[in-house]
């Protein structure tokens, strides 16, 4: 029998290899599942699709930042390097110098501030430039109230999307992602709810992505360790440019089952 020392050393080595295996998996994947509008139960019972896009994925895998202007509208490898935050003393973005945003997750107290709204608006504007139409502000406001949605937009065929960034609530439990549907997409007769969510997170864990898929979310992972709120407005714009055609592509490829 091994000594305790051997056993601990072996266990440590096993753990290192395990972490290395997980750490070295493909950096990005997009999870999509066929979903039925506003019915999580039926979605759960449906066949899940987990698609790992290679060159066509929106990939946050390090390296240089995306030069979206050189190849607009083409979903490809995108890098969002961590940039230092530049803020005014009051924590607001320094709009006079750069478009770098404070590197903070969106805490509850900030969810409904001009900062967050402006951030969402930046994405929305980019989405709009890509052919998406901003959704009415009521839905946006309601999503903001629930701390999930930073922007909403409508596809050309009238379907509504929400754009959410994670971690949306510091310290929120991972398992709560499965409750997104209950919290936001809950059947709410007479209320307007988005048909889908682009969820952007710095977390690349397959389980996390899977949960996102299960609640009908197209999950987009950033470079590990980078939260959506830690990227600059400019980078966010690049990201939106990349997301938009991919979302459209998914729709056109009928990988997302829309409300029919």
């Amino acid at each position, binding site marked *: 029998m091994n000594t305790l020392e051997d056993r601990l050393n072996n266990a440590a080595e096993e753990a*290192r290899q395990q*972490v290395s295996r997980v750490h070295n998996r493909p950096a990005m994947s997009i999870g999509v599942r066929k979903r039925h509008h506003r019915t999580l139960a039926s979605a759960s019972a449906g066949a899940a699709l987990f698609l790992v896009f290679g060159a066509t994925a929106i990939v946050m895998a390090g390296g240089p930042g995306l030069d979206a202007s050189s190849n607009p509208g083409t979903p490809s490898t995108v890098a969002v390097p961590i940039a230092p935050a530049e803020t005014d003393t009051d924590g607001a973005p320094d709009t006079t110098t750069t478009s770098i945003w404070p590197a903070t*997750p969106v805490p509850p107290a900030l969810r409904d501030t001009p900062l967050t709204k402006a951030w969402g608006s930046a994405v929305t504007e980019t989405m709009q430039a890509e052919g998406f139409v901003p959704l009415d502000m009521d839905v946006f406001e309601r999503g903001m109230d629930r701390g999930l949605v930073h922007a909403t937009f409508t596809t050309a065929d009238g379907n509504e999307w929400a754009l959410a960034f994670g971690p949306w609530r510091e310290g929120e439990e991972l398992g709560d992602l499965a409750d997104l549907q209950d919290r936001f997409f809950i059947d709410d007769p007479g209320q307007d709810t988005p048909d889908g969510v682009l969820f952007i997170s710095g977390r690349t864990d397959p389980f996390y992505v899977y949960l996102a898929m299960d609640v009908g979310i197209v999950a987009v992972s950033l470079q590990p*360790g980078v939260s959506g709120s830690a990227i600059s407005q400019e980078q966010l714009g690049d990201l939106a440019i990349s997301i938009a055609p991919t979302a459209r592509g998914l729709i056109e490829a009928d990988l997302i089952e829309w409300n029919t």
Partner: protein
Amino acid sequence: MAITREEPVIPASSFQEDFESFYSRERGAVVGLAFVLSGSRSGAEDLAQDAFLTAYKQWETVASYRNPGAWVRRVVSNRSVSTIRRRTAEARAFVRIGGSSFVVPEMAPDAITTWAAVRRLPTRQAQTIALRYYDRSSITDIARILDCSENTVKTHLRRAKRTLSKQLDEGGRQ
């Protein structure tokens, strides 16, 4: 112990590393530390990310420490032991969605048993074992990370090993 308190783990340094290189260098080790302490791969990535985000938000301060890595390890060590709630939530969600289609290779049974036994130890003892064996930290470094004396670390190690020997021997005989 407050996990994000302001005082440096060790005295400030005149050299300040940029966050990106710090993150690239330390992430693997920090994820691993969180993994062995929490027992959850997914939770470990979240824990590590949250710890790095915490560091990033106050990077100017953290970077001024002589060993920012020790600071992040302290945050992760403290947060890892409270991930049982998170794991419960994960398990609940996992059941709800009917299981995962992802197959992640498991560690060898003996390693799983060993780390499970470590996680059953008192918090400080579990952290000490993880830092010592997984992170290969010295007694001095562990003392800095856990903000205690080296003698205390040695005591934790001794008691942890005594408990582990007993538990793992008993487990082996069953």
